[in-house]
């Protein structure tokens, strides 16, 4: 499966999700979710804990089975594909758990990211996080929370992904690291679309082009213009 180019003809739309319904076992988590992502957008997903934000990202990335609905990237259907095939298509999921492969070194973690994508340009990805350059030989289990988050993102950047699905990146991190990540996301946006699930409203308001608010498994609002993307507006939907 060749990596996808940026933009589908005409619409500028990279990812389209229609009528997504997902269950965990017997309990339904997502109800008729519709959203779309443009090739150069930063889209944020906000909502309370348990609203279904992670489930949404996981479903798009191929880690969960859908009850019904379609997910297309540049008109190519993603539903039913294996998660690793979707990753190779240029859609990378960065999970919430801040877990890296602790028994492997930072370099080996990157090496695994390079294996499938054939992109061994570690300098490029660590340029975003210069701190990692000094930590290449360190076992990833000894990294701090912030360093681990950086490694996870760096790893995902290998292979020039077109879409990054990032799950609560700033959770539990110090403000200085959060601002660093904010700038990194702006930089990344020049080459890729970002979907960021976040509880950190100031961050969202600073960088997001559009915001989806999720409540109890449904999209309850879509904020599409700069004026309405304000913390007090977002809070209303939580």
């Amino acid at each position: 499966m060749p990596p996808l180019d940026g933009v589908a003809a005409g619409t500028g739309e990279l990812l389209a999700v229609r009528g997504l319904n997902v269950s965990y076992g017997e309990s339904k988590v997502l109800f008729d979710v519709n959203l779309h992502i443009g090739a150069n957008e930063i889209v944020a997903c906000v909502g309370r804990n348990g609203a279904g934000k992670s489930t949404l990202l996981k479903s798009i990335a191929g880690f969960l089975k859908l009850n019904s609905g379609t997910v297309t990237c540049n008109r190519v259907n993603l539903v039913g594909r294996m998660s690793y095939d979707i990753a190779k298509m240029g859609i990378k999921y960065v999970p919430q758990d801040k877990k890296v492969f602790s028994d492997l070194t930072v370099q080996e973690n990157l090496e695994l990211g390079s294996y499938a994508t054939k992109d061994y340009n570690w300098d490029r990805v660590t340029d975003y996080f210069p701190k990692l350059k000094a930590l290449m030989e360190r076992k990833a289990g000894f990294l701090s929370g912030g360093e681990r988050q950086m490694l996870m993102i760096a790893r995902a950047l290998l292979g020039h992904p077109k879409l990054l699905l990032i799950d609560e990146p700033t959770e539990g991190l110090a403000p200085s690291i959060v601002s660093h990540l904010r700038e990194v996301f702006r930089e990344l946006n020049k080459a890729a679309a970002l979907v960021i699930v976040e509880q950190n409203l100031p961050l969202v308001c600073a960088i997001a082009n559009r915001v989806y608010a999720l409540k109890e498994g449904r999209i309850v609002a879509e904020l599409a213009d700069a004026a309405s993307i304000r913390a007090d507006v977002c809070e209303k939907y939580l």
Partner: protein
Amino acid sequence: MSAQLLTSGVIFGLSIGSIFFLMAIGLSLCFGLMRIISLDQLLYYSVGAYLTYSLTLVTGNVWLGVLGGVVVAGIVSFAVERLIFRRIYERELTFSMITSFGVLIGGIGVIKFFWGVVPRPVPVPLMAQIDIIGTEVPVYRLIVVAIAFLVYAGIWLFLNRTITGKAIRAGIENVEHVEGLGINVSRLFTITFIIAGALSGLAGGLHAPLIMVDPSMGLEVLAFVFMVVIIGGLGSIKGTLISAFIVGQVVSLGSLIYAPLAQMAPFAIMLLILLVKPTGLYGSPLLKR
């Protein structure tokens, strides 16, 4: 107890421990990566032994037989993985236990069908003995131990120096993250399963000259392999090595002291260790996916 008796006891224990180790690695790796209990490894052990027997009969060369045993065991495990295990990876642990037990029992039936129930002897490839501290020690047993250490070194190199091995170690920690990097974990599972099967086949082939080959041989070592795996802890190669040799020595030296209890001593040790560490010496906790 004389030094000679002790020496031969230790060597015996080392060789039997080596056999246990080769089989336990398979169980441990399969659990660590795929979160399955692969009881059918004992079938590949029997397959290795029986192929060694037949090929030795045909070619006259036991080492060729062992090689053949390893290859066929690998092929059989590949077939089982593709046909059966692939469908049950996401299910819970007990599922794989029951299914693999079915494969084991069914496989024993297949063996009975082709080879009958009469135990078969396999000649020892080297009848030479070497003198150590005044004891005559069979060179073959020393070779078995040497092979086990070579395998350990090989596995270590594989897991630490090859990208596939690193992917497996990463997968043992978190398969989903490995998937997310675009790596085909399904293929990783198959590779691991074949390695496990081949190693079990090697164990069977090496063990064959030391015992009689019979259809229920897998069931006879079953308990010991389990105890090794439980004591060492599922998912740890180092733990498997250590506990394999502990169990080997206990069985061997124990039988010099008081034969009937020797077979049961590992069981007692296992219980003791489980009392203190319910996941074994180096076991990894069962991480929920």
